[in-house]
């Protein structure tokens, strides 16, 4: 079923907020000035962070893929507190709210094509970055574009569901 991305973004707006917040937090971590942040709006792009280009390649990478780390972690932590209730068919309203939040946040873990484009321009197309950086960053950009393509097939929602619902029990099972 095709549902316009903007509608999915509206339905999963907490994920967009966390996504932009993750960019902002990584900027703060690397002491990169931020000029503007839009946490959510109902047009494309649904959120953005405008910042100074990071001085180091690894900082650019982390700022770009920050949402993947932060959203996935939050999705797992929030999902963990509710997923077992679903596993044992005992979920209540609170658990449904948490699971909605977790999946919404997980669904926006993948960096956007805008993030990929920033990364591409700042590292791969730049004349000052090393070949090693370009070799490392190129597959990351490819991965981001593949994720964006996968969102046509609900990959983002599936990813959120897997991290929030499936991963907690899988981890318990592996470590028992």
């Amino acid at each position, binding site marked *: 079923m095709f549902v316009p991305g903007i509608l999915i973004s509206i339905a999963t707006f*907490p994920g967009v*907020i966390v*996504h*932009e*917040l993750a*960019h*902002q937090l990584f*900027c*703060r971590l690397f*002491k*990169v*000035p*931020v*000029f503007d*942040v839009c*946490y959510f709006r109902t047009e494309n*792009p*649904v*959120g*953005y*962070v*405008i*910042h*100074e*280009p990071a*001085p180091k390649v690894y900082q650019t990478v982390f*700022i*770009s893929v920050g949402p993947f780390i932060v959203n996935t972690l939050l999705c797992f*932590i*929030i999902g*963990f*507190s*509710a997923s*077992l*209730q679903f*596993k*044992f*068919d*005992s979920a209540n309203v*609170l*658990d449904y*709210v*948490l699971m909605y*939040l977790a999946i919404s946040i997980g669904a926006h873990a993948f960096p*956007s094509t*805008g*993030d990929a484009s*920033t990364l591409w321009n*700042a590292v791969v197309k730049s004349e000052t970055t090393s070949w090693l950086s370009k070799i490392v960053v190129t597959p990351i950009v490819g991965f981001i574009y593949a994720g964006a393509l996968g969102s046509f097939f609900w990959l983002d929602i599936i990813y959120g569901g897997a991290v929030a619902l499936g991963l*907690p*029990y899988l981890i*318990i*099972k592996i470590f*028992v």
Partner: protein
Amino acid sequence: MQENYPTQSAPESSFNEGLCANCQLNVYEPGHAINLCSDCRKSLIKYPIPKWIKFFALGILAVMVISLVRTQQYISAAIHLGKAENAIDQKHFLTAQRELALVLNKFPKDFNANAYMMVASAYNFDFEAYQVAFDKVADVKTEDEALLSTVNAASEYIAQSFPKDTLMYKRIVAAAKDKEKLLAMTDSTDEIVLKVHIANFLYEAKDYDHVERIVNKVLAVDPNFYQALSLMTAVKRNTAKYDEALAFCDRLLAFNAEDIQVLSQKARIELKRKHDKEAAVFASQALALDPDDTSAMEAKAMVDYFAGRKKESLATLAQIRVHETNSGDSTISKRLSPIITGSEIYR
């Protein structure tokens, strides 16, 4: 989404490139992509996070804490369920059944736990636990094909114990002590479970040749037929083919690595060929799995007896008799008593 843009706070007409690009008041700090003064840089690095986002995060945190408090009991159940699933994967069905009992104490209707309980109890031949679990999931539909196939295989495994031709079964039981009648009935049934019943009665009569012939025919039809393999371990033990007996035991342990009866049988085989140390190992393995299991206790009593600890072996026999009073089955004490009282020579 993130973008790298220069700031456009100051109007372009009066824009002074020698000053901070943000405030246009101070001299900028050199060495950065965008010319910002020290104050602007510091404040923009700490670009404020709106209060509503902080409250939103606090709200999520509060709901999470409430849910995590509730989650504790679910974590414990999930750990037991995980252990049970791992035990089933390793064919440690006794451990699996114990872990599942803990899950079902908290969530008696849980579909997965009941389905796995059917599997574990089937391989442990625990008919009562199997029936209880079956009743809870019989009407539930599932799309988990892998689980369904595991449950079906286990159900077939436990069902092999039941004869379909009950009339023939009654005739066999009636002829239990008549060897000629039993032998005559062997070919009048195609049901392998009934053939094994006949072989069991012939085993009681110590007609090991015929038992082996019948059991071999059964194993030709179904090489994994539990009762036939089990009977073969006893026949091979009593005909002094110890290695073959142990090999049959291993075939049985491949279905259920925690089959106490088979581990006890291994102890009895090793004792029979005077490998007392090996026997002691198998007996303690069986006892460790369930100290109250009468076949494990039998193996321990025999190990004690042949190690010269006659007092301990008689004490174990007394314990077995107490257990048998509850179960109503005195098979084990009847076969153990003559051995440890010295009226039957076991080896």
